[in-house]
C-alpha cells in the first residue's frame, strides 16, 4: 500500500492556483450576469402583458426543470449546429448565468411582491412612471431584502461551476484532474482542490456579509 504524499500538491500549486483563478473568474462573471438576468426575468415575469409573461414563464420553467449539465452540453455542443461556436469558457459562463438567473429571478420576484403596496402608490402619486418606480423605489428595496438569498445562490453557483470542467474549462476541478492524471494521486489533489474551494467560499461569504451589513440600516 502506498501512503499519502501531499508534497506532490506543492509541485502543482501553480496549476491549482491558475485553476482557482479561473473558477473565481467564472463565478464573478456568471454571478454578475445571473443577477442582471434574474432582475430582467423577474420584471418580465411580473409584466402586465400576457405576451411578455407567458414566454418568460416558459423559459423559466424550462431552465428550472432541466439539469445544468444538460444545459451546458446544449449551449456548448448544440449551438454549434446552428453556427454559434462558443469557447468553452463563454459557454460555461452563459450556462451558469442562465441557470442561476432563473433561480435569482424567483428570489427577486418574491422580493418585489413583498414590497408594501404603499411604496408603489407613494411613488406613483409623485408622478413617477412605472419604470421609474421600479428602478428607484421597488427594486432597490427588493434587492436589499433578498440579498441573503441571492448570496446563497452565488455560493451554490461557485460550487456548481465545477461542472464546467466537463467541457474543458481549465478551472479548479479540471486542474486537479490534470495533476492527478500525471501523478496518480487523486486523494491528495481532490483534498487540495476542496480546500481551495473552501477558501473561495470563505472570501465570497465575507464579501456578502459586508454587503448585507452595509444595507441593514436602510431597511
Amino acid at each position: 500500500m502506498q501512503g499519502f504524499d501531499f508534497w506532490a500538491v506543492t509541485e502543482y500549486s501553480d496549476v491549482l492556483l491558475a485553476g482557482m483563478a479561473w473558477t473565481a473568474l467564472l463565478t464573478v462573471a456568471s454571478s454578475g450576469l445571473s443577477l442582471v438576468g434574474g432582475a430582467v426575468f423577474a420584471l418580465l415575469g411580473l409584466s402586465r402583458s400576457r405576451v411578455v409573461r407567458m414566454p418568460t414563464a416558459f423559459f423559466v420553467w424550462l431552465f428550472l426543470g432541466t439539469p445544468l449539465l444538460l444545459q451546458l452540453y446544449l449551449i456548448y455542443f448544440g449551438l454549434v449546429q446552428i453556427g454559434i461556436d462558443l469557447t468553452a469558457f463563454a459557454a460555461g459562463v452563459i450556462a451558469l448565468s442562465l441557470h442561476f438567473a432563473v433561480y435569482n429571478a424567483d428570489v427577486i420576484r418574491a422580493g418585489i411582491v413583498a414590497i408594501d403596496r404603499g411604496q408603489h402608490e407613494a411613488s406613483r402619486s409623485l408622478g413617477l412612471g412605472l419604470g421609474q418606480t421600479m428602478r428607484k423605489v421597488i427594486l432597490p428595496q427588493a434587492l436589499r431584502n433578498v440579498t441573503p438569498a441571492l448570496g446563497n445562490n452565488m455560493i451554490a453557483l461557485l460550487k456548481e461551476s465545477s461542472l464546467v470542467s466537463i467541457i474543458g474549462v481549465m478551472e479548479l476541478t479540471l486542474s486537479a484532474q490534470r495533476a492527478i492524471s500525471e501523478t496518480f494521486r487523486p486523494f491528495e489533489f481532490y483534498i487540495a482542490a476542496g480546500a481551495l474551494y473552501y477558501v473561495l467560499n470563505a472570501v465570497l461569504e465575507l464579501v456578502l456579509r459586508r454587503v448585507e451589513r452595509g444595507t441593514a440600516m436602510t431597511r
Partner: protein
Amino acid sequence: MIQVADLHKAFGAVEVLKGIDLTVERGQILAIIGPSGSGKSTLLRTINHLESVDRGEIWFDGMLVNQPLRGRRFERHVNRIRQHIGMVFQHFNLFPHMTALENITMAPMLLKKTPRREARELAESLLRKVGLLDRIDYYPAQLSGGQKQRVAIARALAMEPKVMLFDEVTSSLDPELVGEVNKVMKQLAQEHMTMLIVTHELRFAADVADHVLFMADGVVVEEGPPAQLFRAPAQERTKTFLQEVFK
C-alpha cells in the same frame, strides 16, 4: 380647481362610490368625514387616479383626469397630472432606503430635472418649514411617526403641487404626535394651499376647513361650512354620526 361629477366606483360587485359630486375652489380647504368604509379614501384616491373610476368625471385645473386614453398615452397623462397633486398617506409610505433628503429630492430631480444643489436647497427649506432640518440625513427608520409624516408632507410639497390630498394622516400616530402634524397642515392652510383632508378628527376639521363634506355608504349625505354642519346638521344620518363621535 377640482370638480367631481356623478362619480361611480365599484370593487367587483360592491359599489363604493354611488354618484359623488363635489367642487373645491383654489385655496379652499375641504374636509371629508364619515364612518369607516363609507368610501372617503376611495374618493380621494380617484382624484389622482390611484383608483380608476367606472362612471363620472374628475376635473383638475381644467383637465379631465379620467380621460379615455389607453396604454402609454394614459400613463403619460396621469403622470403629468400627479406631478401637480401631492398626496400624504396614513402610513407615511416614506422610501425606507432613502434619507429624508433623498426622499424629498428624488421626484424633482427625476421629473423636473432640478439640479442637485437646487434640490438640496429646496429640501432644506421644506424641512425647515416642517421643523426637521436637523434630521435631513436621517433614514425613515430613525424617525418617529410624527417626524415621518412631516417628512412625507415635505416630500409631497417638493413637487410644488397645486392641490394636496391628505388621507387620515394622523390616524396611525400616537396621540401626543398628532399635534405636530396638524400644526404643519394648519400652516399650509394659512398659506392658502388647496387641500382635501379625509379625517376622523372632527375638531381639527372644524378648525381648519372652510367646507365639510359628510359621506356615508358611498354618497354625500350633507355638506356645508363647518359651523353649520357640526352645530346644526340637517340630516338625521349626520346627527347620529356626530352624536356617536362626540359622545
